[in-house]
């Protein structure tokens, strides 16, 4: 069985790396490159909490949930690419002998930490339950009184309850939760680390991953964390999986229902503890198995010299530890931390009042509050972006926005006829859009194009405005037609008395879509004379600039 498991590990890790490498304009085609991100149940469960829906392909997470509920945490050792990487690192760096391996694989209390992390993150995602509960009675009453319900009597009561609860949930959703699981979700973390740190480094060595070198802003932090977690396997095997992984914690809770588990024959067992030698999950197979910790790696079965262990269907309930060993008080404190930290983070001003001009989101993004409830910081969009303009933000979007994608137009620009980022986003933070919707043509003619921001001139730095020098590269590269940059001719006398004719550029805010190619091509490369800021973006009415652009039908397609 161990051989089969190894084959699956190679298969899934290979599949993951394959998908990662083809997430590129040249190779993407129709491949389901986001399947690992969509299959992780943590994303499905937490986005269901923050958005009250399951976005498109996230139903794959239900498959993994079903498998876990029947077989246990098979994901962790058979399918999870990060887990498989940890496994490999633990094996190749192993310098311990058998006795030391047995000791290091015993269960430790610190492994309960992942449940507290999960509790805090889910609490941050569920704060809306409080206002929803408080407003539900009022909403039910309102629905009962309203003229829209046609039933009478008892069925009217039921219909009113249904409508009232639905309305209360709908109203309480906005501004009352945040999605932070992406910080530690293993797939999101791996894709993010690979995208921003590992692959650019590999490019330096092999020059075969991208067409030109890529740079990702402050990604050394991401890379350092990634390497640190992998190297931690040499201190405690599977350290991340056992102690930190919130997905592991969630699957540990689900595996409470599993019908199969490792079972120990108490007669055959001679208490030699050799089963612990290669135990991946530190699940104590030598006594009562901790079901929530077992990775179903099946190593213990082969290590036992007396064949005392087997993977058994419906073994005795008495010889297992069904529930994770968490302290109730600590769990409550963790939840309380989540409940308190989210409002502190959100009300620090970065999302509504002092919103940062540098938070220019990819085209197709939903409004900021909804974005922070959907983005899992997987940086898949950053991976696929062909021009290197999408970058992982630090704290520009507030503390909740860490590693969410923003456009830094100095480093790239948003290609006009490209919607790749929206095609790979697994959670709908960037809603999948068509080229027609992005450009505002065809059926989207009345709506107009999607704008991610507006460009402005810094006339003190612009060559024709401040330095008597011809330029207007910005006008040349502006991709829309008619262009969003127009020029006016001036005639003046230069400092030596000669006649000078210059074209001076202006922005037409009605036409500008905020793509940033003008900023990227501006020759004043250190601090561009034309720069894009987030105002004027169409995804949020409150960030609009011109009235004429706000009052179209499609501009109502924003979330509250």
């Amino acid at each position: 069985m161990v051989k089969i498991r190894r084959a699956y590990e190679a298969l899934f890790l290979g599949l993951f790396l394959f998908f990662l490498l083809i997430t590129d304009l040249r190779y993407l085609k129709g491949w389901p490159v986001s399947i690992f991100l969509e299959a992780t149940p943590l994303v499905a469960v937490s986005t269901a909490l923050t958005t009250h829906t399951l976005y498109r392909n996230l139903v794959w997470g239900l498959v993994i949930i079903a498998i876990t509920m029947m077989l246990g945490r098979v994901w962790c050792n058979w399918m999870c690419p990060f887990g498989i990487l940890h496994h490999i690192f633990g094996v190749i760096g192993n310098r311990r002998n058998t006795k030391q391996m047995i000791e290091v694989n015993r269960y430790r209390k610190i492994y309960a930490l992942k449940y507290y992390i999960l509790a805090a993150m889910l609490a941050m995602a569920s704060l809306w339950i409080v206002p929803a509960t408080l407003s539900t009675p009022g909403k039910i009453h309102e629905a009962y009184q309203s003229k829209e319900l046609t039933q009478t009597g008892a069925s009217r009561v039921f219909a009113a309850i249904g409508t009232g609860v639905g309305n209360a949930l709908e109203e309480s959703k906005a501004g009352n939760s945040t999605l932070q699981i992406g910080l530690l979700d293993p797939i999101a973390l791996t894709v993010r680390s690979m995208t921003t740190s590992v692959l650019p480094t590999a490019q330096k060595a092999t020059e075969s991953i991208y067409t030109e070198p890529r740079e990702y802003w402050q990604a050394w932090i991401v890379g350092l964390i990634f390497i640190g977690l992998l190297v931690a396997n040499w201190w405690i095997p599977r350290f991340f999986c056992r102690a930190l992984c919130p997905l592991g914690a969630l699957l540990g809770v689900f595996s409470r229902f599993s019908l199969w588990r490792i079972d120990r024959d108490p007669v055959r067992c001679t208490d030699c503890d050799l089963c612990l030698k290669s135990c991946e999950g530190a699940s104590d197979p030598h006594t009562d198995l901790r079901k929530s910790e077992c990775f179903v790696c099946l190593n213990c079965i082969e290590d036992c010299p007396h064949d005392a262990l087997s993977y058994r269907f419906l073994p005795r309930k008495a010889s297992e530890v069904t529930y994770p060993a968490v302290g109730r008080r600590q769990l409550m404190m963790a939840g309380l931390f989540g409940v308190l930290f989210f409002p502190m983070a959100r009300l620090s001003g970065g999302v509504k009042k002092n919103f940062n001009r540098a938070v220019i989101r990819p085209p197709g993004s939903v409004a900021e509050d909804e974005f922070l409830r959907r983005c899992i910081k997987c940086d898949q969009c950053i991976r696929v972006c062909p021009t290197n303009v999408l970058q992982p933000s630090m704290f520009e979007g507030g503390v909740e926005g860490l590693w969410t994608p923003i456009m830094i137009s100095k480093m790239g620009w948003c290609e006009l006829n490209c919607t790749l980022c929206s095609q790979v986003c697994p959670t709908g933070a960037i809603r999948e859009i068509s080229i027609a919707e992005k450009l505002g043509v065809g059926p989207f003619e009345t709506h107009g194009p999607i704008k991610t921001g507006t460009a402005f001139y810094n006339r003190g730095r612009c060559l024709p405005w401040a330095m008597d020098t011809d330029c207007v590269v910005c006008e040349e590269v502006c991709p829309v037609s008619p262009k969003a940059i127009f020029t006016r001719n001036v005639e003046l006398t230069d400092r030596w008395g000669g006649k000078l004719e210059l074209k001076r550029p202006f922005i037409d805010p009605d036409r500008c879509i905020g793509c940033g190619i003008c900023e990227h091509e501006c020759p004043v490369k250190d601090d561009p004379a034309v720069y894009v800021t987030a105002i004027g973006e169409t995804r949020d009415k409150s960030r609009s600039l011109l009235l004429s652009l706000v009052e179209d039908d499609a501009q109502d397609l924003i979330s509250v």
Partner: protein
Amino acid sequence: MSEKLTRTQVKNLERLGGVNPADESFSRRQFITQAGGTGLVVGGALAAGMLVRDRWGMEGVKPPPPVRLKDYSVALNPSKPNLVVVRSSPPNADNFSSREEELQAREEQAFKMIHAALNAMGGDQGIAQFITKGDVVVVKPNVAFDKNPDLAATTQPDTVSAVVKLCFGAGARKVIVADNPINNPESCFFKTKVGEAAIRAGAELMMPQDSYFEQLYVGGETITHTWRMFYRPFREATKVIGISPVKDHNLCKATVTMKNWYGLLGNPRNQFHQNIHGIISDFALMMKPTFVIADGRKLLMRNGPTGGSLNDVKRGDTIVVGTDCTAVDSWCVKNLLDKQRHEIIYLDKVIQRGLGKDWRPQWTQELTV
């Protein structure tokens, strides 16, 4: 177990009383409870997931269902005027021993004037034509700025308290005084003294909170679909009264009763200045009030809408009450503010769209009390 047991294993078997618990298979009961339980949970999880599935990915951009404002207007007897101009000399400040008494007298004067106007418009029924027993009335004054009422930039507090008392006298169940000011709400209601006047008269003062705003369907020319609006006061309202001052306005030349509804808009309403006459004409579509009062006892003749100097204020000694904002505005602009009617572009827009009628002398009555 077919192979031979080692000595340790024999000891284990003895310790367990000769029977190996791992030998027995699961019972039927365990199968049904455990397998059945797991099956139920798995089925439940799958069902719950498919129920909330967002197949097309559009849930993130779904707009909230809009609310609509009701039509709060009342039908008048065609023989009665729909616009009444009431003139009255203000009480002489020297006749009173204290400021409070003078203010009390001013409030009584406002009460008398509006009462006379409503009687003239209501005919046999008088005020009952407009406010009936059990009504929930929303009074919308202009408290946009935190200025002293003598500067005539905001609605006079005594007018507000007079109207509130009138409503309660006619049998209203609840009167709500609400506005969404430009300056800070607490400052505005306090410094204009409207807050205190409203509470003293028994009304409920409603300040704009974030959750009090909802998407309102307008479907006009400037607001083509919906806009965020201070809707909470109107949830249970049956009648709406607008009370506005009569002011000069830098951008739209005059602001009287129709522009008063701007105070209900939510952010980013600062963008409508890019098309100010368009948005004001949309108010005529958005709001059909029961009646409006243009308080012309003090007029802001210059430097509106904020004013700021007593030199800009002129005594008008007039209150205009009417059911059509267009007619009231038109009369006030010409006769109180001394402006040219054709300067006020939004009035032309409203009349052109058929949302209001200009004032006609035959539908107007002038009184003196």
